Structure formats: C-alpha cells, structure tokens
C-alpha cells in the first residue's frame, strides 16, 4: 500500500559531502514536493515540481537542488552538506495539473539526515 517511497530512512554524512535523497511515487501524480521538518518550525518547503523537468523554488531553497527526470521520481540534492542541514526531509506528491488548492498531499515516511 506504499505510495510515496523515500529510499533512505536514516543517513549520516560528513560536512562537504554530496547527498542524494530519492523519492518515488506510484500514483501518477503531477506535483511533487520536498520539505524539511525541524522541531518547532513545522514543515518548510524547499522545492517543488509540477511536471517532468520542471522545478520551482520553495521558501528555503538555498543549499539544495532538485532533479525530476521522470514523472514518478523527484530527487533532492545537497551539493555540499553542512551541519545546519541536519534535519528530517519529507517528500510529498499531489494529483492534478496546476496546483489546485484542494489537492491533498501524500507524504513519504521521511529521511532523517545527520551531517557531522
């Protein structure tokens, strides 16, 4: 019944390493999102994509990039990891063309990244 799969649940990386977080959805959704979750701050949007090869910056894109080469896969890339990127990263997807206000987000289980 898994619909949004994040390949890594826990990662430990060193400062300066390149980090890839992978997300795959099997619901044929057009829209995909990457959030980071920190205690007391809720979820903050990093990047989103509403179509293959399309990407838009969210609220906190600095230090991150994304790739969407196929509809079902949305990757988050940390070019040079830093300690302040230690966080829980959540991938989500939603259906529909455009970004209709009522569309529900379906989330993956999350990837907890620790940068030493």
């Amino acid at each position: 019944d898994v619909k949004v799969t994040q390949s890594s649940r826990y990662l430990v990386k060193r400062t300066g390493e390149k980090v890839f977080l992978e997300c795959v959805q099997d619901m044929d959704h057009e829209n995909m999102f990457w959030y980071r979750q920190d205690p007391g701050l809720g979820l903050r949007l990093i990047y989103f994509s509403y179509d293959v090869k399309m990407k838009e910056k969210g609220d906190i894109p600095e230090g991150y990039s994304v790739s969407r080469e196929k509809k079902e896969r949305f990757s988050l890339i940390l070019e040079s990891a830093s300690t302040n990127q230690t966080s829980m990263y959540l991938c989500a997807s939603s259906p529909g063309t455009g970004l209709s206000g009522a569309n529900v987000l379906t989330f993956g289980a999350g990837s907890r990244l620790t940068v030493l």
Partner: protein
Amino acid sequence: AQSVTQLDSHVSVSEGTPVLLRCNYSSSYSPSLFWYVQHPNKGLQLLLKYTSAATLVKGINGFEAEFKKSETSFHLTKPSAHMSDAAEYFCVVRGNTGGFKTIFGAGTRLFVKA
C-alpha cells in the same frame, strides 16, 4: 498573505477524555484547510480537509473539525482519546488562488495518559 497558528505546542489528555487541538488561520481568500497526523518515525497522514463545503468536517479515527470563518479557526476535536492517538498534529492552510501556497503550522504534540 496566509498564516497558520497552532495555539498549543503540547496537549496532554487522559485516555477516554475529549481532545481539543486549536488552530487559527489567516488568509486573504477562502482557503482550504487540512489536519495531518504524524506518528513517530512516520510521514504525515491526512486526517481531514475543509474545502468550502460543509463547515463541520469528519475525518478518520473519530476526529472532526469545524471551520469558523468569524473566528478564523479550524480546531480539531475527538470525543474520546485513545492511546493510539498520541502523535504530532499539523494544521495546514492552502490558498485557492495566488500560487496555492501551502503553510504548515508548527505542530501540536498530543500525549495520552493511561
């Protein structure tokens, strides 16, 4: 501009007693409102959503929420708490125009005592 405020960072109830998680929102337009739940080490799961139909919305696991435009509130309630309700709850507002920006509240952690 849109914003959402969850008025309590932590709520503690005894099993079998009512649950009230408070949420106020601000939106220039008629918004869509959601409650999500996150159990430990899991992703977020939709509890319920309001999209300008009935103001009292029923969700999964016995939860419901009432949209009160005059009070700009969307509080989550449940008549009788169960141990399995212990989790973090997020109130979410999403505009229906202007880019459909989604704003998450900071979360309320619900503790349920036996």
